[in-house]
């Protein structure tokens, strides 16, 4: 195993030089203050956080090779995802060895034994729709909607309103179908559209201060934009006296969007220098290559580093994308008799290849963690000050089972989560949806309500996860 990477003095100094919201440490952190994983020793937990905590929900589709397997649900195979033991000395599973081999063992925790309840939620939807919708909302899909706001949206309502972008959803792939197309929802009917194109993301997020043509001084431009948005808000409010109540939702949706944009324009613009990507790999592997994903990840990490946002989602393709993992010759191009091409077909027919797909996805997730870990923030790394929720829509791809969900939590949430160990839960009370209460707690949002009371009767954090 590679040794875990430490934050160097130079890294920290560079971090201070680059700037970023919340950087308040003027002195480099001594190695003695670190715990051997690049994370600060617990004493910082008691003190004032040196950087606000970020939350990223990171989605990967089509399940894993689990206990259930394709051919025989009862063949006794324990599957490739979950570790067999727990605690700090746990033995990594076959799949998780990918992250261990990347030197990331100490940056995450696998959480096993969680049951995702899809009963009561939406019996009338495609299993993948329900899986996507429940991924971060705690509610199932309703028609074309998600069922409810997602965890990133809810948390950002408490903690993300002072940043430029309340939530920044980014996606590799272009799944065409709701609700699978979206990972972030502001309410049950309203997705927050993801940025899928690196250049569109760059232009919208990092080049917002220039007009498309004819630059104005930024303070003049921003004042003018605010005035125009005020005007639009007034138009919308006046319309409540003219249109009927069936349009109220639309008016309010538009009004809230305008208000959010006004909020964005009112935040201080952090100094945030990043070049426009020159190579975006749009045509490589149908636009679904890890290279293109990494370009998107780098932009997202930069936005987090600069404090442009603290909340984000990342969708590593969706079921409908039919992703082909052709860069891995052991997987190759795949077509199935009735389940479509690529990843989804594999998930129904070939567990041996499915587990290779999972490992490719973990490599990409590992790359994301590396980027976060190598980005200084406050007195440590961006990863230290973040919580990354990584999960799939199903446990097993082919059977759509959700009895023991593949979930990782990464980052240390500013000292709230001790990584480098495995957690195992069991029994009917080990519910996937309860994890969202842990997430809220680690963000300092104890007591904030979340999810659907009708669908989930256990509405409290899982025990023993924090600290």
């Amino acid at each position, binding site marked *: 195993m590679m040794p875990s990477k430490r934050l160097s003095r130079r890294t920290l100094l560079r971090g201070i030089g680059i700037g970023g919201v919340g950087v308040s440490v003027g002195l480099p952190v001594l190695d003695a203050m670190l715990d051997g994983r690049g994370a600060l020793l617990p004493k910082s937990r008691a003190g004032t956080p040196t950087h606000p905590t970020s939350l990223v929900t990171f989605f990967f589709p089509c399940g894993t090779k689990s206990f259930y397997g394709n051919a025989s649900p009862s063949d006794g195979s324990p599957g490739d995802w979950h570790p067999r033991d727990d605690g700090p000395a746990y033995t990594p599973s076959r799949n998780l060895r990918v992250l261990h081999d990347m030197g990331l063992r100490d940056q995450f925790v696998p959480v096993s034994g969680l049951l995702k309840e*899809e009963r009561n939620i939406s*019996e*009338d*939807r*495609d*299993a*993948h729709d*329900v899986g996507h919708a429940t991924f971060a909302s705690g509610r199932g899909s309703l*028609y074309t909607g998600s069922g*409810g706001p997602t965890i990133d949206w809810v948390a950002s309502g408490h903690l993300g309103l002072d940043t430029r972008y*309340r939530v920044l959803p980014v996606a590799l792939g272009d799944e*065409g179908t*709701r609700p699978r197309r979206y990972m972030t929802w502001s*309410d*049950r*009917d309203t997705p927050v559209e993801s940025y899928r*194109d690196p*250049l569109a993301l760059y232009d*919208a997020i990092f080049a917002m201060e220039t*007009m*498309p*043509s004819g630059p104005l001084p930024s303070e*003049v431009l921003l*004042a*003018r934009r605010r*005035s*125009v*948005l005020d005007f*639009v*808000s*007034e*138009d*919308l*409010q006046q*319309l409540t006296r*003219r*249109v*009927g*109540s069936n*349009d*109220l939702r*639309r*008016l*309010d*949706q538009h*009004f*809230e969007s305008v*208000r*959010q*944009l006004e909020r*964005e324009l009112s935040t201080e613009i952090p100094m945030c220098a990043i070049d426009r990507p020159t190579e975006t790999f749009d045509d490589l592997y149908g636009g679904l290559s890890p290279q293109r994903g990494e370009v998107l990840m780098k932009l997202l990490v930069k936005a987090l580093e600069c404090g442009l946002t603290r909340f984000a989602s990342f969708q590593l393709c969706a079921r409908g994308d039919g992703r082909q993992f052709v860069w891995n010759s052991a997987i190759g191009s795949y077509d*199935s*008799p*009735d*389940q*479509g091409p690529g990843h*989804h077909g594999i998930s*129904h027919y070939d567990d041996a290849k499915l587990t290779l797909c999972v490992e490719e996805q973990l490599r990409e997730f590992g790359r994301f963690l590396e980027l976060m870990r190598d980005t200084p923030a406050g007195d440590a790394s961006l990863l230290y000050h973040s919580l990354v929720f990584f999960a799939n829509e199903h446990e097993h791809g082919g*059977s*759509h089972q959700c009895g023991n969900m593949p979930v990782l939590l990464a980052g240390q949430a500013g000292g709230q989560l001790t990584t480098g160990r495995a957690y195992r839960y069991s029994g009917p009370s080990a519910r996937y949806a309860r994890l969202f209460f842990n997430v809220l707690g680690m963000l300092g949002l104890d007591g904030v309500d979340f999810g659907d009371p009708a669908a989930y009767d256990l509405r409290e954090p899982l025990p023993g996860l924090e600290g």
Partner: protein
Amino acid sequence: MTVASPERMPRIRSFVFCSALGVSIAAAASCRGSIGDAPFSPRGSRTSPPGGPAIPAGYSPGDVIPVEASMRRLTNAEYDRTLSDLFGVAGSTSERFAFAPDDLVGGFENSLSGLIVTTRRVRDWQRAAEAVAQETLANADRRLALAGCDLAAAPSCVEAFVRAQGSRIYRRPLADEEVARLLALASAAGAATGVAAAQIALEAMLQSPHFLFRIDVGQVDEGSPSPRRKLDGYELATRLAYALWGTTPDDALLAAARAGELDSAEGVRASVRRMLEDERARVGARAFTDGWLRLLEIARDMGPAEASSSVEEIRRVVDEHSRGSARDLLGILTTPAAWIDADLADVYGASAPPSEPWARVELPPELERDGILSRAAFLRWTAHGGEFVAVPRRGVLVREMLLCADVLTLPSGLDLPTPDPTQTVRAFWEPVESEAPCSGCHGVLNPIGHGFERYAPDGRRRDVGRLGEMLTGEGAIALSLDAPEQDGFHGVVELGRLLAQRADVERCVVEHLHVYLHGRAAAPRDGGEIERARAAFHDGGRIFDELLVDFTSSDAFRYVSEPVPIPEGTVLGTIDWSEEAP
């Protein structure tokens, strides 16, 4: 999940199915365990939750009931065409500024439930408006033409500009108060010159809901025995322009509105006939048929490389039957005419590969390509997941697109039948079709789908299956949605002929047009209007242009029902939606 009671969904049937037409076999090959003897329980629609808006007070089922008023956002395509018509903006503004694509709901991109507004969209609208305003006013000659006076010289010219262009942008004259607010905005935003003031006003108008939404309000119709509101000429002009042209009203239509020519059904018919002569009517017809025939969905699902020519073929064939005054629209189900490129000529076995990129040919009967159902776009799309799942998918396609039928919604958590490559397709499905609970669904869908078996998944004709079995194309379709009896047929050509004669197919065309025009699934309250229009459509020889004239001059289109007012004192941004019942 409640199931709509039969009385809530009496005649107008639609269904929820995976919007990609059940791309997984989990969806297509499994039935709910509890369907018992109710194989087609109405469970809502493609575009709205069960039931839709209720029948308003003062009306009975079967009446021609005005559709409720709504605010509908412009689609990306409508936005682009509108800016092009207003200011000659070249190319697609929505693509230039990377707008998020519009969601397809029930095949259409203009559905109310899909046309949401997000912060990203507001951000994109802002950037686009700034660019369009700046570029539109950059040229002095252009400014003069738009304002009718010199913005740089006369301070009063800004107001003239706002009034002249505002009435084109908002598609109605601006109230004095609106003009005053725009001028105040320009002044407050620090515009130092007349040009700068006009530019800010233009930016604001292009971000206003009065531009970005089509807003129906209407005036109370005192003379009507049943409560309703009459749309004014400008509101109707906007409805007509986006319905028939997919873009903003032109100056002639706004002049007709101003002159009161749209106040009567007769006047509307005259304007609609003029509009149908315009080349823009092709855009509107395509926007409808693209949704009805799932062409947008096919193009998105299959990607440009695979879908482009096969979708373009269907568009060209349908154009021949949807334009002009002499063609039976349902002739698309029986026509031998095809538009082919090199790929399609090869797939269809057409004798003379075209020298031009596109050639119109009449395919001889022995090729078995009469009617659009036998063409590559539908065959390939439904077979995208392989030939096993293609069977129920083809049944779903026919029932949804042409019969507006209920199909059971997707079940979850059921055992997956795994196709066995050593079995023929029919042998694989036989037990599923004959044994409850699956038979409730597949006993109806699959007999339609089997009729397509003489086409391979790539769209080529074949007589022999994968395992050497002879393929007869024998299929069956229910005689009506309410009866279990089925009509046998051999092959898709015969299926097309059967369907082209059915009244419920005529009604389904009209229902889809209703969905396109009003942005939501047809509901029981629309039954009277749809049946009225169907009868007229049938009696008039099923001419699409005549259907448009009839539909858009009907009371159901020219009036709106009395809305439930928004409570006085409602303040946007303070409403808690979390407790709203699903």
